[in-house]
């Protein structure tokens, strides 16, 4: 067994253990932390497969951004784990049935003769890294969808601001010097308004 295989088994063992703990941990914060560990080990496995771009992306995006946000939300919410666990045995048969069904379906799809696409033969030359290859494709063949995706993100940002921003809040205070000069006609105003329907 060479060193690479050893590292693979080491990472996989951690990955399996961490994934199991994600669903068995009683404390949701622990579960989220185990999920981070699982992502990290997964990144290691990908790096072993020479998919270094994916490895870095999962660590930067999932561990760095998504999971931190997730952890933050979990900490903010008061989750009562015992109440969630209630009825676990009651729902187990149904859950198990659905799980088995999904495995069978997946097996049928993967094993069917329709989708046996031969693995791509095109290999990158040795001197060009994965990241460089992806980058070159993204800015040459796929530049149009790439730019469109960025515009979609911009629209998402604008939409979020439009729907939530309600203008700057100005603090209210009263000036006592002006208050003493107030007259009756400043306080009440009689308006003639046309009658509005509705």
């Amino acid at each position, binding site marked *: 067994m060479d060193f690479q295989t050893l590292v693979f088994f080491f990472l996989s063992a951690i990955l399996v253990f961490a994934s199991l703990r994600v669903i068995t941990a009683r404390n949701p914060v622990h579960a989220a932390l185990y999920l981070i560990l699982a992502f990290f080990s997964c990144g290691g496995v990908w790096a072993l497969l020479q998919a270094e771009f994916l490895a870095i992306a999962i660590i930067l995006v999932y561990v760095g951004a998504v999971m931190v946000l997730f952890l933050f939300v979990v900490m903010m919410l008061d989750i009562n784990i015992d109440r969630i666990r209630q009825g676990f045995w009651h729902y187990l048969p149904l859950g198990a049935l659905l799980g088995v069904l999904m495995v069978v379906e997946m097996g049928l799809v993967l094993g069917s003769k329709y989708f046996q*696409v031969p693995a791509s033969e095109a290999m990158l030359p040795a001197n*060009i890294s994965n990241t460089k290859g992806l980058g070159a494709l993204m800015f040459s063949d796929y*530049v*149009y969808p790439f730019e469109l995706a960025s*515009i*979609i993100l911009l*629209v998402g940002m604008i939409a979020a601001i*439009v*729907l939530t921003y309600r203008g700057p809040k100005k603090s209210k205070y009263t000036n006592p010097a002006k208050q003493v000069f107030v007259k009756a006609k400043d306080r009440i105003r009689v308006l003639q308004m046309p009658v509005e329907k509705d």
Partner: protein
Amino acid sequence: MFDNFVVPDLLPAAPELFLAAMAAVILLADVFIKDSRRTVVFALTQLTLLGCLVIQFVTMTGEVTFTFSNMFVDDLMADLLKAVLYMTVFVVLFYSRGYVLDREPMAKGEFYVLTLFATLGMMVMISANHFLTIYLGLELLSLSLYAMVAMNRDSVASTEAAMKYFVLGALASGLLLYGMSMIYGATGTLEITGIGQLLMTGQANKTVLVFGLVFLVAGLAFKLGVVPFHMWIPDVYHGAPTAVTLFIGSAPKLAAFAVTMRLLVTGLITLSQDWQVMLIILSVLSMAIGNLAAIAQTNIKRMLAYSAISHMGFMLLGVTTGVVGGDARMALNAYSSAMFYVVSYVLMTAGSFGMILLLSRAGFEADNLDDFKGLNKRSPWFAGMMMIMMFSMAGIPFFIGFFAKFAVLQAVVAAGYMWLAIAAVIFSLIGAFYYLRVVKLMYFDQPADETPLVAPLDMRVLLSANGLAVAVLGMFPDILMIGCVLAIRHSVIA
């Protein structure tokens, strides 16, 4: 390996690039413009649309051009539909201006920026030759629309409509993507012309293709809003602010038509016998449910929503009858009649919703049928305009709607579907009832509301022009029809 980098040919996509750049400029300009000077944003938006129209005509080559590694196609159909699209959005923004100004949360520049981005999404859809670009264009359009529907955020109805639209829209996008992935699995390519060529050789697995096709048609049907994927239409039309309803109800139909043509005709014409059956079911159901349910409505926005469902069903008849039993001789007439139908529908629907906006004012939405009572006494001219729209939608000669229906029916009869033509005529007759009821309310009832109309001059002029266009194009439909025939012959049949 990467030394031979070639800059893609940007010229065919010049209008898209211009629009994207201008939308970003307007977004930034809006930050520095005071609220009192909001007209500048409006003017910039309208100039952008006019600029797109000019660029479109200047860069028109009259040939089918592919660029961005075949993801983008520029042909006559795209040119024509995009030109109609710019004009529609231009007119829509003029109609909406007063309405938007009167409603505080919508009076911001973002309304115009989102409209421009939605327009960009539709242009991308019209020119798409790749599953990826179809999907991205669709999402760009939908995301902008979701936000626009919810923009009037203090209104419960708008928020509910936006939520419903968002959830159902996401579901429909999922269906479309699933269908696309199946077809990709069977053909191994995402490029639409490539799929078309590959299917001609008959190598791909038919079962997987048809499986994917079902989902593809379901996704398209949702976007077009035909039965049984129509449930969102009445609620969204009703709940959205009328200015947004006008936008949703008009321009996106052009994009949905273009995508239908590209996917079903350019890409999957070899499966025509399979999708024809699906489209016939969809269109008959749409005409039946759309026309019957519209009768029961008291809200004119809901009524026009059901009318939209029935019109889209009618339009699909044209798409259906292009190829019968592998014989494509009728294709030119059928597809161009469908295109004529969709363009004329957009013209009529813009005018009808424009009339609702004309009668609305600050704090008052004229969206009930009763608000049209006695319009003739308040403004005989605009009552006449509304009458033209309603007659045209009902398909009464000699307005443009009549010729649209006539052309589609001709194609249906030529294809040998006599029963389908008879059903279409019967459902149109039923539909005429609720269009004529609006006319009856305007001319024979006493006005419940005597307030004079307050719309600005520019809107009155454009609305009159819109109404007259419906009437004049009804007398000379050949101008538009020749354009549609040329576009289809040039882009689809070849």
